[in-house]
């Protein structure tokens, strides 16, 4: 994948423009001058422009992923902000939020500042999420106010649940000071125990320790009630079970401060895929039954689940090429995301392309308070060109991450990002 500086005058010509902010779809051109939007629709193209022919393609907002792991500082052998940026652009993402479970974790204003400074050199927008508790230990609140001032956009101990209910309450209460969401990785440690995959028929067949769905739904329910009680903003990450979707749907009726996300792999796979002990499908929370997968799709279609987030989790070959119990949890996901969710939600479930794009653009941006009017004049260009009909097979050559742990190899995907424009750069995917 090539990344180049964007031409002074770049015109994306004859594309189908999908504007998820205004909710409009129309044919037209987009003129980007010195990296900023200069004209959209029917425009007079300047003579010295570089023209990209977008006929048959879609031009839309760059995707925003509010849940990725870029492993810097500490595990740059898995991923760095730079390599993660490449992976993001390969998948059409121009803006991401990085989780704080690094080494050391992002639990001080200084570490938040570290990310902000490093991100300035990256070709996409990277926002740090701060830890809720110091060292993610679950005991002492971090200096959320100062971290917010340095640029933290939300707080999470992701990777680990906030097991103690009293601590979760305090975190939610304190977060109202900044009006930022708390993102809790909801898996009750006691119920989850040593589980490595969803507890069900398949785990019984395989003799693997199971992690039941109620480990997730019980804690999600607790968090939802605490959110209502405290009036704080709660964002539920990587929802994986029918039961959790059910709780969220109910509580959202009276509480618009609750949001939720779902990953592409939870929408694409069910636990039958784990019959071969494939460690690339070992993930937390686990991939569950077909019934759960269908419930997640239902949750996306009816708005219970607000956005898609990949939970991009790079791991080294040694972390994954081992026995199932010792393999690390997680998979990369930025490069395969659009092709996977477009196939499931649009091709198989009949969602419109416009609605899908909202899940990847305005919805996550709204949750984090990022600007969404990306076709507005003078706005720094953060756009992608997509061939939404292209059928392709995911392979190693599509991976830009430093790690290669993906279960999507040799899977047929639908819809491919051709160009990603962000921070004055453009990719050729």
């Amino acid at each position, binding site marked *: 994948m090539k990344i180049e500086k964007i031409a002074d005058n770049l015109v994306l010509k004859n594309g189908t423009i999908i504007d998820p902010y205004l909710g409009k779809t129309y044919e037209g051109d987009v003129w980007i001058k010195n990296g900023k939007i200069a004209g959209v629709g029917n425009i007079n193209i300047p003579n010295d422009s570089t023209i990209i022919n977008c006929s048959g393609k879609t031009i839309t907002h760059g995707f925003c992923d509010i849940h990725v792991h870029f492993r810097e500082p500490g595990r740059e052998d898995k991923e760095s902000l730079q390599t993660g940026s490449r992976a993001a652009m390969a998948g059409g993402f121009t803006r991401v939020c990085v989780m704080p479970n690094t080494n050391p974790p992002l639990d001080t204003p200084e570490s938040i500042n570290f990310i902000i400074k490093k991100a300035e050199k990256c070709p996409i927008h990277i926002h740090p999420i701060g830890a809720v508790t110091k060292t993610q230990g679950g005991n002492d609140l971090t200096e959320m106010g100062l971290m917010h001032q340095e640029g933290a956009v939300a707080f999470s101990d992701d990777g680990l649940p906030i097991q103690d209910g009293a601590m979760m309450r305090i975190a939610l209460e304190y977060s109202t000071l900044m009006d930022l969401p708390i993102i809790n990785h909801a898996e009750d440690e006691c119920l989850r125990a040593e589980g490595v995959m969803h507890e069900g*028929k398949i785990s019984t067949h395989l003799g693997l320790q199971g992690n039941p769905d109620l480990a997730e739904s019980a804690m999600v329910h607790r968090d939802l009630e605490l959110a209502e009680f405290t009036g704080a903003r709660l964002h539920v990450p990587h929802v994986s079970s029918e039961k959790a979707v059910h709780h969220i749907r109910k509580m959202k009726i009276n509480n618009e401060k609750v949001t939720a996300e779902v990953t592409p792999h939870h929408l694409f796979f069910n636990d039958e895929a784990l019959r071969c002990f494939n460690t690339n499908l070992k993930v937390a929370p686990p991939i569950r039954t077909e019934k759960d997968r269908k419930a997640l799709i239902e949750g996306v279609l009816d708005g219970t689940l607000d956005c898609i987030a990949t939970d991009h989790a790079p791991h080294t070959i040694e972390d994954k090429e081992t026995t*199932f119990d*010792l393999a690390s949890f997680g998979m990369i996901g930025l490069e395969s995301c659009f092709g996977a969710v477009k196939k499931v939600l649009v091709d198989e479930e009949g969602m419109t392309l416009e609605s899908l794009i909202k899940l990847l653009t305005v919805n996550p941006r709204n949750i984090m308070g990022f600007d969404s009017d990306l076709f507005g004049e003078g706005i720094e260009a953060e756009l992608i060109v997509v061939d939404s009909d292209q059928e392709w097979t995911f392979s190693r050559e599509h991976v830009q991450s430093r790690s290669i742990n993906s279960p999507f190899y040799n899977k047929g995907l639908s819809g491919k990002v051709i160009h990603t424009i962000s921070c004055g750069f453009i990719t050729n995917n």
Partner: protein
Amino acid sequence: MMLQHKHLLGLEGYPAEDIQTIIDTAFKFREVLDRPIKKVPSLQGVTIVNLFFENSTRTRISFELAQKRLSADTVNFSASSSSLKKGESFKDTAQNIEAMKIDAVVMRHPTPGAPKLLTEFIDAVVINAGDGTHEHPTQAILDMMSLHEKFGKLKGLKIGIVGDISHSRVALSNIYGLLIMGAEVTLCGPPNLIPPFIKELGVEVSTQIDEVIEWADALNVLRIQRERMGLGLVPSTREYRAMFGLTQERLDTHKKEIVIMHPGPMNRGVEIDGTVADGDQAIILDQVLNGVASRMAILYLLCGGKSSEGDES
């Protein structure tokens, strides 16, 4: 005759005719074990590694005897638990073995799926001697051979499996094997030691040992595995014995012909009384001898021909 799969990783989905072939061949090897000189040259020049990542005396000895009676060359590798902790050794160990050009590996490992992972690193035949709480196919085969010896058939037999089902690879492999061969299986044990979704495999479940004794033609009594439990899932051994133990008193009240099996090692006085284990209805020692014979059959059928580029599953 040739088995359809190159490896023996488990009995799930295993062809019934191949299980029958193994059992029939095992009976032929029983005869060899009755000779004054208990040796056949069938696996001469074949090198087999016993790769045991988990402690086991009886299974390893049983395999070693089987290998030696077939004139194979055997090598034992016992990995210490510390080399297991990070797991790096697994792939390296596997590739080292492959580099030494061995023909077959008999592996025991504490993690489900480890033998399958091994087949991805090496070309040799892999035989699963127990992978954590997943399968122990050779145990189930010797159990089925022993039942076949006693009843002349497997189809239609009623088998009860009693004990800590949720941590038992012996139970799971027996369930797969017995159902494939047309037997009926009922599981019995403390409710918190029976996996919630186990009925989906096609078995019945009961917590009442006396009902199961009434129903069954044979009982396979599992050891209460203290080292796997960690959380103290059974209140006490006396409680377990009272509620599920195969005591002499309990058997006497039932007054019926029932075959008693146990994979060993036994906790005498806990899941089974010493007098029951030593009594006429128990075939535990036959199981041990059948263990050697059936492992000879498995090794012979998997390693005794030209190595083919066939089915790798």
